[in-house]
């Protein structure tokens, strides 16, 4: 049973077609990684799927209760402390004030934030800590679907690995489904059950490949072998590292 289904989705910005013929289905408890070169329309696809922008045409059906979104930049309110930022989703969902404290503390613990960091403002936190706050903000609303839009691109390699582990852990624990956008095939192979490839010009999903086993149990060598084989022999992944500066937003 699919929890998110896009059928023949089309979208254009100011008359310029960005997405066309997009078909994608995501099952309950499944993390699908969406890869493709920069500017091919991955963010647009996520925004359409999350209902932030209305598609020009096509059908969209969502079977989940509540989604959350984690962006490339943490998008924190600079004037609010970490805990106020984490509580934002709850505030917007009109969760009563008395219940927010416990939910914030729980989400912060899941994102491995120290209680001492919760009273700090974003300017006082490092890049990695800020992204943890953004993750906690997403987890606090107790979503059953999470959109990740290249959330770790700005972080260094070691930090990125720890964040990926955090995502893998929390998603498998709670059985969350999600769409994980990235242009890093290695990251896709670590966090997802399945990798889908978006066409360089946004003209459809070229195809998808299931990964062996669940992300939480997948070994590093299995990930590396899979990526090497995919890049060497699978025509689906031939163009994912193409870059066309003119199309980068």
């Amino acid at each position, binding site marked *: 049973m699919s929890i998110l289904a896009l059928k023949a989705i089309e979208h254009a910005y100011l008359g310029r077609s960005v997405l066309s013929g997009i078909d994608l289905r995501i099952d309950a408890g499944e993390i699908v990684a969406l890869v493709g070169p920069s500017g091919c329309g991955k963010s647009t696809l996520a925004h359409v799927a999350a209902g932030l922008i209305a598609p020009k045409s096509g059908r969209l059906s969502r079977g989940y209760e509540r989604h959350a979104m984690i962006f490339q930049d943490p998008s924190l309110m600079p*004037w609010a402390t970490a805990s106020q930022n984490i509580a934002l989703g709850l505030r917007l969902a009109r969760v009563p004030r008395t219940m927010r404290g416990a939910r914030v503390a729980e989400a912060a613990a899941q994102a491995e934030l120290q209680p001492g960091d919760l009273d700090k403002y974003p300017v006082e936190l490092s890049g990695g800590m800020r992204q943890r706050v953004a993750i906690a903000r997403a987890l606090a609303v107790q979503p059953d679907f999470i959109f990740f839009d290249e959330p770790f691109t700005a972080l260094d390699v070691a930090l990125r690995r720890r964040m990926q582990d955090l995502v893998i852990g929390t998603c498998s624990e709670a059985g969350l489904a999600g769409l994980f956008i990235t242009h890093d095939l290695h990251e896709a192979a670590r966090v997802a059950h399945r990798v889908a490839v978006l066409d360089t010009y946004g003209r459809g999903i070229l195809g998808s490949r299931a990964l062996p086993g669940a992300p939480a149990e997948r070994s590093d060598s299995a990930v590396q072998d899979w990526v090497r084989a995919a890049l060497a022999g699978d025509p689906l992944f031939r163009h994912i590292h193409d870059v066309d500066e003119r199309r980068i937003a």
Partner: protein
Amino acid sequence: MSASLPGRAGRILEFLWSGWAGLAALFLLAALWQAGHEAYGPFILTSPQDTLAAVARLAGDPASWALAGLTLQRAITGFAVVAAAGTALGLIAGYSPATLRLARPLITVLMGVPPIAWIVLAMIWFGGSDATVRTVIVVSALPVVFLGAAQGIATRDRSLDRMAQAFGAGPVRRFLVIGLRQTTTTLFPALALALGTAFKVAVMAELLANAGGIGGALANARINLDIATALAWVVIAVGLLIAVEYALVHPVKAEIDRWRRAAQPWGVKR
């Protein structure tokens, strides 16, 4: 969120520290003033001491309290109109680029008209009344507030809007939770500037329109060539403005800028 005790103590210390700096500057000014007095004599520049004596004399007279109260009331009500109208119009213009584009040239024209011309017009329309003073305040201070509000909305961080939308906030809640708070960075300095303008323009309009208040008292002092009283009224006007700034502007500013201070305690970058 309750502020931690050391945080609050730090803010009080910082406040005292800035008060100390202000006091030092005031005494420097008094010294220069004294030097001027000694160089040019009491008919050109009364000594600071005599001026303070004149202030004390005025402070003992209920009639002068009424005069100062009149100016204060005019400045504050004029400012209130400016703040309400300027903020509302500016926010609308910020969300509607077409309106802003139309408003910009109008503002340029408005700001190009010398305040003295407005005083003449307002005197013709309203005579020497509250309305004259308020009109001049509104015309002189409105553009700043309008632009401050419009700028704040137009230059807001759109990624925050998108984020709030992703968490299910409609346009109204996005404005209340995200937009309004972001506007304060440009709106608040504009409001502080408008408050100062309101005071200065009020005194000037009163003087020229012969509308009583501190401006009227200054006009009388000029007629009597009473330099001590004139200076005393200037001191009182400045004192009123400073009192309002510390009672109104600084507490709000401290609250708004809390997060900025977090990165730069004591005004020094870590």
